[in-house]
């Protein structure tokens, strides 16, 4: 009887724990920024930002995304995929040195940020195929 009581109260305690982070703490929360940035970013040997953005848009369309927002000055493309689930993707293209462009992609699956390197790898593989360039890892 008392063991059951304890197990129930521990369970309730666990439920309570998951909800006890304050709402404000999420504003600037996130994983390890350096590690995350490294697998969300690839460098490409081109300086044609416009073409890279158009390839990003074409790749996102190939992958089933609809383009929500674009900004050429910022090099920004945002898209959403709906396929039983929802993925929101933000891609930013910017110059990297004199001869390269850096492309950074970040995605949210339903309401969770994707912090697994594999989906990003798949995206950059598809993007590289679209623009006939190899996506290079950056440090």
């Amino acid at each position: 009887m008392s063991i059951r009581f304890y197990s129930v109260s521990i369970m309730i305690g666990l439920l309570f724990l998951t909800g006890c982070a304050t709402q404000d703490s999420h504003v600037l929360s996130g994983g390890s920024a350096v590690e995350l940035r490294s697998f969300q970013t690839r460098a490409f040997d081109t300086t044609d930002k416009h073409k890279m953005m158009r390839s990003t848009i074409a790749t996102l369309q190939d992958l089933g995304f609809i383009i929500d927002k674009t900004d050429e000055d910022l090099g920004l493309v945002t898209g959403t995929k709906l396929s039983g689930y929802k993925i929101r993707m933000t891609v930013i293209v910017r110059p990297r040195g004199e001869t390269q462009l850096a492309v950074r992609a970040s995605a949210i699956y339903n309401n969770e940020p994707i912090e697994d390197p594999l989906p990003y790898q798949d995206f950059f593989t598809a993007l590289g195929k679209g623009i006939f360039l190899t996506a290079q890892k950056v440090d």
Partner: protein
Amino acid sequence: MIDFLSARRALVCTFLICMFITGCASIPKDAFKLPPASLEDRQLQSRVFNTLDNGLLLTSGASVLQDLGYSIDESNVGLGVLSASKQADATDAGQIVGAVVLALLTGAVTPTDDEQKIRVCLVIQESLDDPDSSVARITIQRIIWNTQGRVSRVESINSPELYQAFFEKLSKATFLEANLI
């Protein structure tokens, strides 16, 4: 003693299940992989127009979508992007009949599809095969809410008939022929 052990086991199980629930939101493996049918999809969703005027194709696209009751969410002539959306009815007679029959048999009220938001995206790219032509590609998605106000489905709409009907309208609006890739 045995009782205590089994209770402890139950506790450990509960703990593991709790951990599993919090960690099980993994994304589908193929979410960012090009589907085998992606080339075919692209062909169905695209038409070639003999112009390099992004502005013409996009303003015509916008007016076609306006005619259909869409509001424009995003436009960028330089990148050749136009996105629009509209709210529409999503009630399905068959589904309602099914829900009524189920309610009569079991007494349980099942929610049915009620409203949908349709999103259309038109992208213009230069044609790789013909330097004087552009390729217009359309993709459509929808979000469906049920009678309880919850999202019941989110999906892409793959319908060659809808693509064809849209490009016919776009062709009329631009006075240009829409050719298959």
